[in-house]
């Protein structure tokens, strides 16, 4: 992982990219959202403060998924009626990107997938409606919770430009096993993420946050 060194167009502080394909990052000092165009950095906005957070994960947390090492380099924070959750951007040792969602300390790892299967419109996804993406997964997914969420903020390196969002809409996909997915209808066409739910222990996380009195 190269660490391209540059200066924040907002405050001049050093900005490093640890993920060669990162498109966007935030300045650790002034919270400017910076987008990379070839070698130039453009300040496109200002990230809101990350709200007080109970997640054990932080930028720099390392772990393992399916025997591949990853490091957490960025996140998107959303809020919905029952609270907030994080989508942590994972960069794997082979340079690929993934996502670790952490909602009320329930964890799932997923990947953005391109499917040729038509993505059903959100209004057709009543609870328990089966959905299949035969070219990318053998699973039958069942539509679950529909979540109207607000984008709160971003932090760190992301594989795409993501800022200045407001309302977001997601439909969870569930299975009878660990299979898990999300359809992000905020984008058009919608984005499909597929993966599985994981137990905290399985991720073998290092450099997590410290909770006083807990180990």
């Amino acid at each position: 992982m190269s660490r391209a060194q540059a200066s924040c167009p907002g405050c001049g502080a050093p900005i490093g990219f640890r993920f060669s394909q990162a498109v966007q990052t935030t300045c650790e000092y002034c919270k400017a959202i910076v987008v990379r165009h070839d070698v130039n950095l453009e300040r496109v906005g200002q990230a809101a403060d990350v709200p007080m957070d109970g997640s054990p994960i932080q930028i720099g947390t390392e772990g393992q998924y399916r025997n591949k090492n990853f490091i957490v380099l960025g996140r998107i924070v959303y809020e919905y009626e029952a609270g907030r959750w994080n989508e942590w951007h994972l960069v794997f040792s082979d340079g690929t990107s993934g996502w670790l969602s952490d909602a009320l300390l329930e964890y799932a790892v997923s990947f953005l997938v391109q499917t040729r299967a038509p993505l059903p419109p959100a209004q057709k996804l009543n609870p328990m409606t089966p959905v299949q993406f035969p070219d990318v997964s053998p699973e039958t997914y069942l539509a679950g919770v529909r979540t109207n969420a607000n984008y709160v903020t971003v932090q760190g390196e992301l594989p795409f430009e993501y800022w200045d969002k407001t309302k977001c809409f997601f439909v969870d996909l569930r299975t009878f096993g660990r299979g898990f997915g999300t359809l992000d209808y905020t984008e058009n066409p919608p984005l499909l993420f597929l993966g599985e739910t994981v137990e905290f222990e399985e991720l073998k996380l290092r450099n997590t946050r410290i909770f006083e009195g807990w180990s």
Partner: protein
Amino acid sequence: MGMPPTVVRPQVRTLDCPNCGGAVQLKGYAQTVNAVCIQCLSILDATNPNLRVLQQFKKKQRFQPVIPLGTRGKLQGVQWEAIGFQVRQIVVEGEAFRWTEYLLFNPYKGYRYLSEYEGHWNFIRVLPCLVERQMDGVRPTAHFGGKKFAHFQNSNPESIFVMGEFPWQVRVGDKVKLNDFVSPPLMLSVEETKDESIWSEGVYTKPEEIWAAFDLKKVHGDAPAPKGVFSNQPSPHASKPGSSWKLFALFLLLFIVTGIAIGMFTQNKSVFKRTFAFTEGVQTETSFVTPVFQLGGGSQNVEVEVNASLQNDWIFVGMALINDETGQAYDFGKELSFYSGYDDGYWTEGNTNDSVTIPDVPAGRYYLRIEPTMKDDSAAAAATGSTVQMKTRQANYTIEVKRGVPSFGFLWLAGFLLIIPPIVNTIRYFSFENTRWAESDYGGFVTSGDSDE
């Protein structure tokens, strides 16, 4: 340049209740959405910096959690802190049933629950998946982890008391639609709203384990014994009566093998056999002795069989087996009687043969002293007014002496004794299951839903 990055450590927060001014401690970090003031029981919005009051009560019955909130305990190798408590209630035919639920928290591993009803505890986790439901006859089943769960109950529990803090919205009066499925010691529960089904899995946990985990002995003394039978309580009478029957079948096989072995290794040898004729009143000296015969082997049993040709008559044969060398005698006798006739059909009564077994007779040279009689007691003769006495009474009888006769009697006795446990087990098993299922929506034990896949 702006502010340098700082590491913010998650903190336990203490805030003031806007209703009564009491201190409200938040130990569930930023996930906590609702918290209950321990003094006035107001439900507060923990995401609001000023702890806005969401629900408050003028007068409220208090319930005391058995596990004091803030207590930590290790269950299945992970440390959990009890941070929330609620009492839930269902009303069945006018009768209220209440149970308590504890919310357990670990900042890394998330949340678990403990439920308690009449001393029965379950350790519960929310499942990160859906669970397949089917119908088994009239009863729904759920399938998870290779096990079939039988539907137990459909209910609409209401929260009647909350305390502590929760990572979601809680209100007293909240109702959920709940369905329970059991496969002891496990229970699957599904809480349904119009949008989603949340499945959870409970493991029946002995009160002693809860007491040990949260060190409750110093608070409450010993754990109280659970009352009655709980829906997913494992049966103490073996998981299925089948296993005790299997054991019995194994013993039965062993008996058959033993029986064959006894048959093979005992002598069962005829050492003396002779037929005698007897006429009542003819012989003056009715007692006589047989020639000497040899009883071989060590100390084995001896069977003496008497067979008489009788027709509407009886004979008593008094005998003694006497050791020719030591004079030791075994006295015994046999009465044989046989009657037959034709009234409303042919009938018979009695037997023309019988035998006596003498156990543990040492080897040696023996003879029999025999004293037959067919003489009625005068009293008996008068009572029966029998005419039999008038004619000459005579009979032929055969005496056979066998050495080392196989005896299967003890096997029958052992078999009888050994069949008792599986029968008792079966009765107990069904009785336990009946008690379990009596509380269900089905009111009794239905066997079809009771098998693993």
